[in-house]
């Protein structure tokens, strides 16, 4: 159970994120997914509206299908290869990003800023960090070379004016700065939180609210965001998770490892 504003909902934050993320995926897409919400979202999409969607894992796996209840612990162990179409070296699966075969990559992060830059490396001064985070992994490559979907909890300390360290580039300083830095493709597409879906202004590349989840107000979002958000016009309201989506999702993760 999960309470936001005045509405009581019968889903958890992770379930909401997963369902909304799955809806952002389309049939026929090739999706770079990490474990947890991204993998569940991609699998949910496959089962509901995108049967021809292909999952890639960083460990070197093409077209796997997860076994409900037997979720992999990371993208680099043999559980990831269940029912896979192909297994290949890591460098080669990451090269698919550079070659342009990947539509969407999923990312999360400790911080994201107004231009969609993501920090998964340092909290505090990198030379004397308060917290050393695990780092880029394939995040920098995905963010540099593909369109990115971010699914994360909406918290003021995570939605910041400027990330302390750009691990995975979004639109950098906005405008044409990403392109000018030499990043000629990809970029953040949608940020899915427990409050809203956010996108980017096509010109300024500033983050903006595209849609609110049911019962959430613009003020609710602003209260949990560390910078001024633009508003898309029109501003949509998302449809709540359906019974079918939630049932299917819970079937995939019966132990509620990732959706609790």
């Amino acid at each position: 159970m999960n309470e936001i504003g005045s509405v009581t909902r019968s889903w958890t934050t992770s379930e909401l994120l997963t369902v909304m993320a799955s809806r952002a995926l389309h049939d026929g897409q090739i999706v770079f997914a990490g474990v947890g919400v991204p993998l569940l979202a991609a699998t949910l999409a496959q089962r509901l509206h995108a049967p021809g969607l292909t999952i890639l894992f960083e460990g070197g796996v093409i077209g796997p299908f997860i076994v409900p209840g037997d979720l992999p612990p990371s993208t680099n162990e043999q559980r990831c290869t269940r029912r896979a179409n192909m297994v290949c070296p890591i460098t080669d699966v990451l090269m698919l990003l550079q070659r342009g075969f990947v539509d969407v990559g999923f990312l999360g992060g400790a911080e994201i800023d107004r231009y969609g830059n993501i920090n998964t490396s340092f909290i505090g001064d990198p030379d004397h960090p308060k917290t050393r985070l695990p780092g880029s992994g394939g995040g920098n490559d995905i963010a540099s070379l593909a369109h990115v979907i971010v699914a994360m909890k909406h918290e003021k300390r995570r939605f910041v004016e400027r990330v302390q360290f750009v691990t995975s580039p979004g639109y950098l300083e906005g405008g044409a700065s990403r392109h000018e830095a030499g990043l000629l493709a990809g970029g953040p597409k949608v940020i899915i939180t427990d409050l809203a879906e956010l996108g980017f202004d096509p010109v300024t590349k500033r983050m903006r609210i595209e849609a609110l989840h049911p019962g959430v107000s613009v003020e609710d979002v602003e209260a949990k965001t560390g910078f001024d958000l633009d508003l898309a016009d029109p501003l949509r309201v998302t449809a709540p998770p359906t019974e079918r989506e939630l049932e299917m999702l819970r079937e995939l993760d019966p132990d509620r490892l990732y959706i609790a």
Partner: protein
Amino acid sequence: MAQAKREGRALSGYEALRSETALRDRSLHEKVVSLEAAAALINDGDHVAIGGCMMSRTPMALLWALVRAGRRDLTFSRSIVSSDGDIVVASGIAKKVITSWFSQGIVWGISRVMRHWVESGTAEFEEWSHLAMGLRYRAAAMGLPFLPIRSLMGSDVQRRLSGETREMICPFTGEKLVLVPALRPDVAIIHVQRCDPYGNAQIDGLQFMDIDLPMAAKRVIVTTERIVSNSQIRRSPDRTKFPFFVVEAVAEVPYGSAPHECYGLYEPFFRHMDLFAKMTKEDPERGSRDYLQRFFYEPRSWNEVLQRIGMDDLLTATSGGRNVHDE
């Protein structure tokens, strides 16, 4: 030998690479050694590249032997580091880890051990993107000084590495490219499912960076679940992932990747990984000291390590490992 080695390091460029490679014994000969003898081939100060990725095909037994041998000032590099990274920093054998991601695993949160040793400045964690790590090894494997990459640009990851990378304008397209330098480990240590006494190594399933790694390194040490005959290797030569002549030593170590996994044979020992996370969570210094004492210093053989991990965990991991293609 040590002298030659230091000189080799001072050299740079293609001619140094060639003379160093020419001096290697590349003849077809048997090179089976014990685990301890394999560890003894690694010197203080070496740059050791770890095969596998995350919790998969980690040459853990060899790391165990290295920790016990008290090697110092090692630099480790790996595509992605899990508890193997925690162990090399906590045991004090590593001064630096070059990788793209460093934590025990997503399900256990951010590694307290990594945080403690890195944040205190005791060990350095040099961060590259995952593809950059791959291309750095690949450049070395190709005998090239660099490879171009289209990521890294614009990020603080590159900025922080600015002394290490270069940028160029492509003479064909006018586009900007980042050049990542070849990463040439002194030693690559790689765990495989099977290898013959000459060093012909076959890997099933996930290959990670283990095709490039042995070609990139100056020396290669293989640990293998089983030493098989050269005839068996020759029955499927297209499954051989790197050739004997790059390999210096081969040690047979069943369950040599425990408590990490070895594709098709055993999954990660999840309960043991939970134990490690639990022991190191509150007080990473004391916790990892206790863990190392119990599973690294006290056991006098790898078999004894496995005994301490326990039969239940081993059988559970084995049962999971053998199910890999079970739909």
